[in-house]
């Protein structure tokens, strides 16, 4: 692909940005009610015309017998979010895969990208339906909250609704025009549509993110909740960008895992070797997408948590050291599941290559380190004990395991897990190749040095700051540790890519030669991701505790209490079951269109 050709994509995109800025200018303008009399206009401009946050009582929350309003809103919101994450994520990597296809002129990439978008297209209408359901539930069960939010975000809500038209139009054109817009300039047009689709979809998500983050870290309002009229201030609240970044990365990982599950299912049901090879490749690509986004995800999560602490230390402590602290043990189990299943899939996939035997011996060591890191992450700091147990243990902390419960130990664990997953991936890439460059020894030595030095640095930073400094500096190692890990990922990928340029293949890669159990690793990845998103959605929302809008709009409903982790887990599980059932339906529907039944004798014979 020529570099200059990119202008064909960027120019329309810049035009789109210009249009967005025109709309945005209106969105950013101060929102003050127009005074009826010109003489009062200046006064009105000074005095905001918005009501304070209402002070409600339990009677202000409509009840419907047999329906718990909070659970209804919770499930509708979570289901909407799962589908929205999926349909927003898939076009991101479809765009990348399509571009790779154009660059390499390998049609298999184009077909793969089309198959990915085909899976997501049916989910699109379900996303909209669930969004409507959420809106209705909010209006029915929390009318005052919705009215208050709509008063502040009325402008952005209108743009949100209008952007849906744009999203739908571009998506349908992108999908249905796939085979029409092929070759030369038409293909560029199609790729541009993909870019526009992503720009509109991401903007939609950012607008919705502003509403939920406003509820967590309100801005543009005074202590009584009176809106200043500055919509941009309300949108650009303290947690908006951290959530934006976190959701974009998490969506890609989640979308990759769901499409991976689709490929896994098709692989298991494939009737021919060709089909098996195709869906094996699709599953591998989806897993690659999921892992690529999974690796930076903990960093995005860390940034979000740091910003929560910076916004409100109380909120931060409530999440990590307060009532939600045990939730992170559950999260550790889920993240451990994600890393182990993603790695297991890679290790199984090495069976596709005849050259992989050279690396098989290392797999057990990788597994030991990743499981070890998972166990450290899984270790709680304080233990809930009976008085007798407390006496026997000599306090709430275990002598040896207690130190593993603090954040620096977790930081070492998660960075180690990521570094070793990178190593797994490098091994997989090398499995079927033999490098031909003259500097192989030097390159391997440099890589070994990079990994060794990086791991030592991660360990040293964590141990020194975690156990030999004041509490306030305990997490100071986090950023240099993250930078070390990122350096390892980037530098090792660059060295490896150059080292394996023009490498000889041991034997043709045998797509489809992978055990069925590897497909279950892909299902595990998808289910764990779904469940994890639900759990983290609970904590994000639950951090507000008994406030609709933190500190300014109190939740006075009978459901204002924070539920236990078990209760939350049950709601998340029910939601995950509904989601998986709907996803299976979506997968099934996406195949139905290709089926043709010959209804012999049903149709009238055509006249000769």
């Amino acid at each position: 692909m020529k570099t200059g050709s990119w202008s064909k994509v960027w120019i329309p995109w810049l035009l789109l940005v210009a249009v967005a800025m025109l709309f945005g200018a209106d969105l950013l303008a101060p929102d003050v009610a127009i005074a009826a009399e010109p003489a009062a206009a200046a006064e009105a401009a000074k005095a905001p015309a918005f009501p304070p946050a209402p002070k409600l009582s339990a009677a202000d929350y409509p009840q419907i017998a047999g329906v718990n309003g909070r659970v209804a809103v919770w499930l509708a919101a979570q289901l909407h979010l799962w589908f929205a994450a999926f349909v927003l994520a898939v076009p991101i990597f479809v765009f990348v895969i399509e571009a790779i296809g154009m660059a390499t002129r390998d049609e298999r990439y184009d077909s793969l990208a089309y198959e990915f978008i085909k899976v997501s297209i049916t989910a699109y209408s379900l996303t909209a339906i669930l969004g409507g359901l959420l809106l209705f539930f909010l209006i029915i069960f929390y009318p005052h909250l919705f009215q208050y939010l709509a008063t502040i975000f009325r402008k952005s809500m209108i743009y949100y609704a209008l952007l849906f038209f744009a999203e739908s139009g571009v998506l349908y054109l992108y999908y249905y025009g796939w085979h029409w817009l092929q070759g030369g300039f038409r293909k560029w047009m199609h790729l541009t549509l993909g870019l526009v689709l992503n720009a509109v979809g991401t903007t939609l998500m950012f607008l919705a993110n502003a509403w939920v983050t406003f509820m967590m870290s309100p801005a543009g309002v005074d202590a009584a909740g009176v809106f200043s009229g500055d919509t941009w201030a309300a949108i650009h609240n303290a947690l908006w960008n951290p959530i934006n970044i976190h959701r974009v990365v998490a969506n890609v990982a989640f979308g990759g895992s769901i499409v991976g599950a689709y490929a896994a299912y098709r692989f298991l049901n494939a009737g021919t070797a060709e089909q098996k090879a195709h869906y094996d490749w699709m599953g591998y690509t989806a897993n690659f997408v999921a892992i690529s986004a999974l690796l930076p995800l903990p960093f995005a999560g860390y940034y979000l948590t740091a910003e929560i602490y910076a916004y409100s230390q109380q909120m931060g402590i409530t999440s990590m050291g307060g009532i939600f602290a045990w939730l992170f043990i559950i999260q550790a189990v889920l993240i451990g599941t994600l890393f182990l299943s993603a790695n297991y899939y890679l290790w199984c996939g090495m069976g596709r290559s005849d050259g992989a035997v050279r690396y098989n011996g290392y797999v057990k060591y990788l597994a030991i380190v990743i499981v070890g890191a998972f166990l450290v992450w899984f270790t709680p700091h304080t233990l809930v004990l009976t008085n007798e147990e407390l006496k026997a243990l000599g306090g709430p902390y275990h002598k040896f395991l207690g130190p593993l419960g603090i954040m620096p130990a977790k930081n070492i664990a998660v960075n180690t897990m990521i570094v070793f997953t990178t190593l797994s991936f490098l091994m997989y890439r090398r499995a079927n190749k033999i490098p031909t460059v003259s500097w192989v020894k030097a390159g391997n030595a440099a890589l070994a040095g990079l990994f060794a030095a990086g791991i030592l640095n991660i360990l040293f930073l964590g141990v020194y700051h975690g156990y030999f400094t004041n509490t306030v500096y305990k997490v100071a190692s986090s950023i240099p540790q993250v930078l070390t890990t990122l350096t390892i990922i980037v530098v090792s990928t660059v060295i490896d890519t150059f080292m394996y340029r023009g490498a000889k293949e041991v034997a043709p890669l045998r797509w489809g030669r992978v055990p069925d159990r590897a497909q279950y690793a892909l299902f595990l990845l998808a289910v764990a991701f779904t469940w994890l998103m639900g759990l983290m959605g609970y904590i994000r929302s639950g951090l507000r505790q008994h406030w609709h809008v933190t500190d300014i709009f109190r939740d006075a409903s009978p459901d204002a209490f924070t539920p236990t982790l078990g209760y939350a887990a049950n709601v998340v599980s029910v939601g995950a079951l509904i989601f998986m059932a709907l996803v299976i339906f979506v997968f099934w529907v996406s195949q139905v269109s290709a089926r043709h039944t010959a209804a012999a004798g049903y149709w009238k014979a055509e006249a000769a």
Partner: protein
Amino acid sequence: MSNFLKVVVFSLLVIAFFAGFSNFGVPQIEPAPPPKEEKLELGAMTIDQFVALGKKLFEGKGTCTLCHNPVGGRAPLLDRAAAAAAERLNDPRYKGKAKNVEDYLYESMVAPSAYVVSGFGKAGTNDTESPMPDASSGSIRLSEAELRAVVAYLQDLSGVEVTVKIPTEVGTEQKAEAKPAQRPPAKNAEELIAQFACTACHKIGAQPGGPIGPDLSKIGATKDAEYLRRAILDPNADVAKGFARGLMPANYGEQLYARELEMLVAYLVALK
């Protein structure tokens, strides 16, 4: 078993494992219910009871122990806070207005950045800004009396003389909270207008009224809901020609229930 069933059973087992672990693998801590305003019987309290109230607030509603504890190390321990106060008042870094220990402790809760203990400031502020919120506002919202009770507790904890006098009134926060609770909400706009004696100043609909405020008998024909809502909540924002500023009380936002406000606005909009 078909692949479909295998996949369904596998997914169900995975979800059941996560749910099971969350229910039985971690302790089920029942989070405290939302705090309720307790009516303080200040007149009948001894100083010991007042100190005990301060301890209760310190560990409960005030959420002080969230940070001021020996485990997390996020904020200085306060077991010697009152004893250290005299020294801090003379510290050149002190930026507050307190003249004695009692006022220093009070100030440290409502203006925590007046003096930041070394090593406990916000990152990058060189200990000039405290990460602690104002305990009299936000989600903590301790009343005047409650703040004084915490001061008394901190003095007692430090082993110095408790100089706090038990206040006779609860303070602004609890009074403001208490007002709406004392009055049952009006059933309709007419009842509300009668309760607040709006017709003393305004002519409203068919009801006769005084000439002190503008005639509202057909106000809905010229003004919309937003204007009217603002006029009730912030009457000095727009003052109709020929009427004096500041006559209408500006605290209806505190006195009206949200539902009543909307009911009244809807009623006025319909007057055409």
